[in-house]
């Protein structure tokens, strides 16, 4: 009975997402700009929630509460600073400028924006290439996560490959049919759903254990050290390295960066900017406090099992709430996973068609044809990551795991280019390649350490990228094809 109920809730949810995609389809125009960016017409609520749901993957739901359970609620501070503050400021610093440039010059991808300014097809291809290198394994990991979660939830009734395949097919369907508009609408549903279910879950558990003071009291008895700020795990270096690299990395993740282009007006951006920190807080506080409090509650959960890859949130819900509600929250986690992956598929496909296929294979492509190739790109990308997820090769796993820091390497060269007129093509190219090579070698080469004095290699790589971009720009002259004025002159607001 409960198995059927759980599967029913999840399939029902998938069908609902598909219906929303079909509704959105009725509004689509057959152009690449509409498919990728909903023709830059997105309003405040949809922009807020689509960014929110895209940014937060299954990680918020599973790994976040796990960390709070194992090491204490400091994870709330790390995520709050990373997403609520650093990302918000980058949304202005990078995002608003990108939005203005996109309005003016019809850019759809980051690579296009950089390639145009620096008069360089190679730079455009390079940015797309490095982005796809990190994006592909990250999408694969999301499929691995979905397959594993469904298999665990149904106690093997839906095997891994079938679960991951089911999610992949649904995503392909509504992304190919409705493009960005469909994704943004389902994201809005998914984001709201995540918020509501998390608060209800928290209220439910607290009502049973007797409120926050009682829950904190039992945590004090079980693991009192979790209530003091900082620990051997949460060192200042770890907290800052993580918040900074992931915060900057998120802004360069294709599916988030592309959202910088989609706002319908400046007012939409202003309102989203102001509401953003509170929206983050509203999700992080209940999700991570629930994980932290779970440590002190009388449950059958064994910390060793969580350490070894179990998830605390489904376990605590199973303990305190009825099956249908626990299944709803798992569907919420699935929603988080899908709302990130579908956007990644679309952005991955746009980076491929705009920045690799068009410049290198067929420059004379029509809008209509690009729209078709973009859709084919989504299918190919999704099937390829699904295929890889069945094998989950170690190299791809490591790449996916390191993706946030990998994307973070792009952020500072891009910011320098956006704000410093003297940036040269050689400077930004060396900055991007140098920091990527350094960071990749820290992931794969044993002789390059992953941390230096507690500071992560990702953070140091960012510093290296900054130094190289500024230093090489300073030493070189701009190439004849560069158009320095693009980022600085005539940026009108309306």
């Amino acid at each position, binding site marked *: 009975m409960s198995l059927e109920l759980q599967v029913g809730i999840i399939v029902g949810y998938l069908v609902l997402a598909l219906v929303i995609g079909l509704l959105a389809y009725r509004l689509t125009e057959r152009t690449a700009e509409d498919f990728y960016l909903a023709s830059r017409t997105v309003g405040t609520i949809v922009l807020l929630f689509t960014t929110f749901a895209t940014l937060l993957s299954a990680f918020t739901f599973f790994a976040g509460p796990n960390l709070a359970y194992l090491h204490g*609620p400091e994870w709330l501070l790390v995520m709050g600073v990373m997403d609520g503050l650093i990302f918000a400021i980058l949304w202005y610093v990078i995002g608003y400028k990108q939005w203005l440039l996109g309005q003016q010059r019809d850019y759809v991808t980051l690579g296009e924006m950089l390639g145009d300014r620096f008069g360089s097809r190679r730079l455009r291809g390079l940015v797309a290439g490095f982005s796809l290198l990190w994006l592909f394994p990250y999408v694969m990991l999301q499929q691995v996560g979905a397959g594993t979660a469904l298999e665990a939830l149904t106690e093997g009734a839906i095997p891994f490959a079938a679960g991951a395949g089911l999610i992949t097919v649904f995503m392909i369907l509504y992304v190919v049919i409705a493009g960005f508009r469909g994704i943004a609408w389902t994201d809005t549903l998914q984001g709201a759903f995540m918020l509501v279910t998390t608060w209800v879950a928290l209220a439910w558990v607290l009502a049973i254990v007797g409120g926050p*003071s009682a829950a904190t009291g039992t945590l004090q008895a079980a693991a009192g050290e979790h209530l*003091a700020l900082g620990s051997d795990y949460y060192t200042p270096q770890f907290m800052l390295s993580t918040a900074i690299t992931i915060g900057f990395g998120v802004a360069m993740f294709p599916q988030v960066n592309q959202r910088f282009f989609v706002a319908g007006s400046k007012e939409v951006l202003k309102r989203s900017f102001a509401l953003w920190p509170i929206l983050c807080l509203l999700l992080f506080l209940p999700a991570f406090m629930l994980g932290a409090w779970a440590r002190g509650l009388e449950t059958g959960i064994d910390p060793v099992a969580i350490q070894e890859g179990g998830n605390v949130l489904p376990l605590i819900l199973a303990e305190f709430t009825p099956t249908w509600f626990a299944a709803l929250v798992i569907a919420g986690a699935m929603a988080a996973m899908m709302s990130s992956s579908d956007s990644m598929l679309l952005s991955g496909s746009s980076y491929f068609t705009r920045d690799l296929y068009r410049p290198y294979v067929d420059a004379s492509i029509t809008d209509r044809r690009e729209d078709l190739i973009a859709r084919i790109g989504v299918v190919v990308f999704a099937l390829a990551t699904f295929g890889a997820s069945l094998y989950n090769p170690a190299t791809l796993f490591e790449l996916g795991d390191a993706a946030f820091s990998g994307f973070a390497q792009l952020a500072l060269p891009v910011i320098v280019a956006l704000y410093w007129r003297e940036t040269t093509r050689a400077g930004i190219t060396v900055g991007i390649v140098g920091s990527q090579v350094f960071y990749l070698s820290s992931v794969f080469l044993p002789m390059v350490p992953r941390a230096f004095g507690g500071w992560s290699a990702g953070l140091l790589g960012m510093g290296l990228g900054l130094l190289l971009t500024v230093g090489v720009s300073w030493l070189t002259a701009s190439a004849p094809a560069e158009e320095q004025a693009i980022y600085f002159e005539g940026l009108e607001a309306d």
Partner: protein
Amino acid sequence: MDSLERVGWVVGAALFCLLGVPWFLWGDDTIVAGLPLWVWWHVGWLILASALFWLFAQRHWGVGIEPETDRDSTASEGDAFRTDGGGAQ
């Protein structure tokens, strides 16, 4: 915008992010209303962030990005007009 003003905005933003973690409460485990005091600090800080971002969006939106002349056009044109008018009289 001169470089001093630009440095001011950058340093201000960095400090604001940094203070999302109450470093001065390091090791502190005071509980207030069922939650550690440092959690309350963070909650308050993010609410403050929303308020400040709203203020920024109202008053300074475009700083460092849009050309100064565009952003301040109403104020400065008005001033210039007044000066000219005064001279004619």
